């Protein structure tokens, strides 16, 4: 009994990390219709940014979060302004292929600069701290922080999207770009801001990922697949859905690892495929359009 409860709790906490990966992917598709194949690689870039900041300035990875957020937001704005603005977005193929090119460039630039060896950011004693949540069930402080971060980020994004003028414009553009432009919304500007916002979520998830485990220049695709599975399970367009999707994948991973270490990822994929077959539009789909 304890082991089942433990699996669910540990898996849910791991799911917080997957939800963090998924938020950006969901946003970038929801608003800009970009299927960002390079999403996982963006997360890995942030991990290496954290590594460089730690090695050169001696910045603790969790302390460097605000600085990295600012840098990432600027990067997102620039990427949209100098690259994706010029990609025809009549159908999703061109932007997807541009992201595909970016992915190859990112992975190999990182390989050139840092080599293929796995890296990890050390956060110090916090990594091994744990508390007894329930009798005989210990949870790490770091996974708790990550999970809490996911919840806070979802609350903030909800507030931005549903309570602010910028959010209203984002929703208008996401519903229909043409109409949004007709009522006077500066769509290129919204796209740039939205891309910056996506990169903010990536900055947070990248640093936390780098503290939680190893990463290499080739880690991106795996992260993309986890993020994607969380988005689809949760139902496209639902922010809380991504958290549920992340938790489902997280529990599957932890349960799979109990059977055999080699089954961890496979169990996650298997659960995803099952849900796809039985609930094709996810557990919490936004109203069909």
């Amino acid at each position, binding site marked *: 009994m304890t082991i089942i409860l433990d699996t669910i709790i540990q898996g849910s906490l791991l799911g917080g990390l997957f939800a963090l990966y998924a938020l950006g992917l969901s946003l970038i598709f929801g608003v800009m219709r970009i299927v960002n194949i390079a999403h996982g690689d963006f997360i890995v870039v942030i991990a290496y940014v954290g590594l460089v900041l730690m090695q050169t300035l001696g910045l603790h990875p969790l302390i460097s979060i605000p600085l990295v957020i600012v840098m990432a937001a600027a990067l997102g704005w620039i990427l949209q302004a100098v*690259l994706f603005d010029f990609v025809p977005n009549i159908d999703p193929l061109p932007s997807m292929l541009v992201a595909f090119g*970016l992915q190859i460039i990112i992975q190999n630039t990182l390989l050139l600069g840092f080599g293929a060896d796995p890296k990890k950011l050390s956060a110090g004693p916090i990594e091994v701290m744990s508390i007894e949540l329930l009798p005989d069930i210990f949870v790490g402080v770091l996974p708790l922080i990550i999970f809490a971060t996911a919840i806070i980020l979802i609350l903030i994004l909800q507030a931005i999207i549903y309570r602010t003028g910028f959010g209203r414009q984002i929703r208008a553009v996401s519903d229909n770009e043409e109409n949004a432009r007709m009522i006077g919304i500066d769509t290129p500007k919204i796209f740039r801001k939205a891309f910056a916002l996506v990169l903010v979520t990536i900055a947070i998830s990248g640093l936390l990922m780098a503290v939680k485990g190893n990463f290499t220049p080739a880690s991106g695709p795996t992260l993309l697949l986890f993020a994607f599975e969380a988005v689809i399970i949760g139902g496209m367009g639902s922010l809380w859905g991504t958290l549920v999707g992340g938790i489902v994948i997280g529990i599957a991973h932890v349960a799979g690892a109990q059977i055999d270490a080699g089954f961890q*990822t496979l169990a996650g994929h298997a659960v995803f495929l099952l849900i796809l077959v039985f609930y094709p539009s996810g557990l919490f789909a936004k109203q069909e359009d």
Partner: protein
Amino acid sequence: MERNHFLIQLFFLLVVAGVFGVLPLFVDNGTMRFLTDFFLLIGIAQLWNLLAGFGGIVSIGQHLFLGAGAYAFFAMTSILGIHPYVSLPLAIPFGAALAVPVYAILSRLKLAYFAIGSWVLAEVMLLLAGKIPGFGGGSGVSLSPSIVKTFGTSIGDRMSNIYWLALGITVFIILLIIILLQSRHGLALKAMRDNETAAMAVGVNTVFVKVLLFLISGAFLSLLGAVGTLLRLRISPAASFNITDGTIFIIFIVVVGGIGRVIGPVLGAIIFLVLRETLSAYGPIYMIILGGLAIATMLIEPKGAAGLFGRISKKIRNAG
């Protein structure tokens, strides 16, 4: 005009195939191996282009079929003891049969997410391939010498036979595609390529066409995967289900060569091999250049080299 165009294509294809067909009599094994690679790349790229360029189906998981074909070939020859020359054609119905459940699952994903979904499926197949007993686990297993020797006892004989196989299959795939485009379905395909919603509105059964394309592509990728195994002489999850060789380079080839044109993958494969031969010693830099070229193509000439040639020849014609 259309009819003439088709006959010109056909004539050109057969002449080129004939020229390449007699080459093994004159060139060494290394060159044959290089050209075999070239044919396989064109074949795989044609099938990706058939899906993405005409059917609007973007998959990043087509290496799934290559790997499955390789594993099926191994199972048929080494485990079931079926003659290799019988096993090869059997890879076609195997691939088509596999394409049915794959498409059934993936078609639940809305247009763009299909791509990432296909990647997940390919990943699942790769992980599973390392776990089925009898296939050598994660490190894979070699084809037995007796099976390899069916294709020729000397290396030279074997290379020429595999060369002709790869050439024949690729020519057949191209032939199939140009006949398909020439047929009634071809009109539907061209309509879909230009505007899917409009095609649906004028009565094209887009679902049927998409399923048909997916089956054709799965069937022949499986066959190409089996032929690729003859070249590699072994199966392994990492090599047989290789996303870099089976999908990433292929997307590059189609995009840079010209998506939605039959000549595109051929031009793309030539460009790719020229780059590989001159730059691959530089490792990551070579890959960065490939990525940059793919992006530049999307920004400057989304129709790739084929589109560029088209533009230039039109200019020359207008000037003259």
